[in-house]
């Protein structure tokens, strides 16, 4: 509690994450990215900038893609969260994950999980134009691939296009 008696230094955060309910008392200032990685222990979500630009920390909260580095764990109390660990089913890669593999759309893999969550969060039917795909993908940075194969992977799943553009 502050001197004024308002607010508290710690918060209770109860969320459903990848279908599982978890509940922790954490410092109010704990970033959601650190909550997911260090408290819940899911390290597939990566931290690349901690100021909302690179997208490596992208997760889904209540169905929307957001940047977990620019969010407090406190802000998502009561929410439903999905991270990259939720995409495969019984070890079977999702179609998008498989497409990334088949199209060599990843190299070091650090940005990949963020891309996958951005893609998972939207409806493919809203992204049937090439320009729309480019604009969507522009919210995640990659330093290794030059993006070309990522675009191919996405369009192969969403537009049914052949690889090798």
């Amino acid at each position, binding site marked *: 509690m502050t001197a004024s008696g308002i607010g508290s230094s710690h918060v209770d955060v109860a969320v459903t994450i990848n279908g599982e309910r978890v509940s922790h008392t954490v410092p*109010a200032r704990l970033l959601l990215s650190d909550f997911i990685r260090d408290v819940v222990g899911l390290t597939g979500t990566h931290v690349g900038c901690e100021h909302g630009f690179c997208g490596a920390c992208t997760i889904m909260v209540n169905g929307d893609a957001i940047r977990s580095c620019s969010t407090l764990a406190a*802000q998502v109390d009561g929410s439903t969260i999905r991270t990259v660990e939720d995409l495969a089913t019984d070890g079977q890669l999702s179609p998008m994950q498989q497409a990334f593999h088949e199209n060599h759309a990843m190299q070091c893999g650090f940005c990949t999980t963020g891309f996958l969550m951005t893609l998972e969060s939207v409806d493919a039917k809203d992204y049937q134009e090439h320009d729309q795909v480019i604009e969507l993908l*522009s919210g995640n940075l990659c330093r290794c691939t030059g993006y070309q194969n990522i675009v191919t992977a996405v369009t192969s799943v969403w537009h049914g296009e052949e690889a090798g553009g």
Partner: protein
Amino acid sequence: MKPALFDYYRPNSLDEAVGALAASDSSKVLAGGQSLIPAMNFRLSSPSLLVDIQGMPEFGALTVDSGGVRIGAAVTQSTVERSPDASAAVSALRQALRYVGHLQIRNKGTVCGSLAHADPAAELPALAVALGAELAIHNAGGSRLIAAGDFYRGPFWVDLEPEDILTEAYFPAPPAGTVTVVDEISRRAGDFAIVGLAAVVAVDEGTVTSATLVSFGVGGKPERLATAESAIVGFDGNGASDALYDAAFQDADGALDDGHATAIYRQEALASVVVRAARAALDSAQDGRRNS
């Protein structure tokens, strides 16, 4: 880059929210946090109390009527962008939101948050000024309304005291016979603008009869382009656009000079954007796409 210590408070009512702000000597309103949290991670901002209003129903309303769009403090940019009613009433909102950051930012960031943050290169403050938006501000002592045109004082500086909350923004529908244009030049997709323009242009039979032209990214805050607003009267897209270009160039005198662009570049670029916005407005009008 972790934030400094602070206490966190979730009020259940407007009274509790303004009460908390009044009681603390270093507090900040937390809505989406997409500007605030990064600043706190850099420790550029270290409030000792955060008052989280994003879950409050009284701030979550997006209301559309024939007069305009009313946006509560907790309403995300995505919610407005996705609302067909809001776009029908004030199409400029979607036009501007298209340029704002990326999907992930808009899913959490709020319209009111962007208005209060007052980044000189942001789109929404300029649009608010261009449309004559009205902002409702509450504190423990009461409330007031302020016109967007009077709200912006300088870079990241608005007419808000530490104990104030911007609770709602009302964007009136632009007058019939006008076209709204939002245009900008930025380096990368989603960046803040090097220069930008929010314009409400009245067109009658292929000629501009009046316009409200508000720049962003040029100076420390959204600026009305007074000279260009005069020069644009009678613009019909035929013949030279030099007069309009020169007027806008002059309006942008004193433009920002930074690592991205020189001052004179901003003047030239803004002047070009004004001319192309004028042409775009005429094209829209011709295609029957004026506001009604």
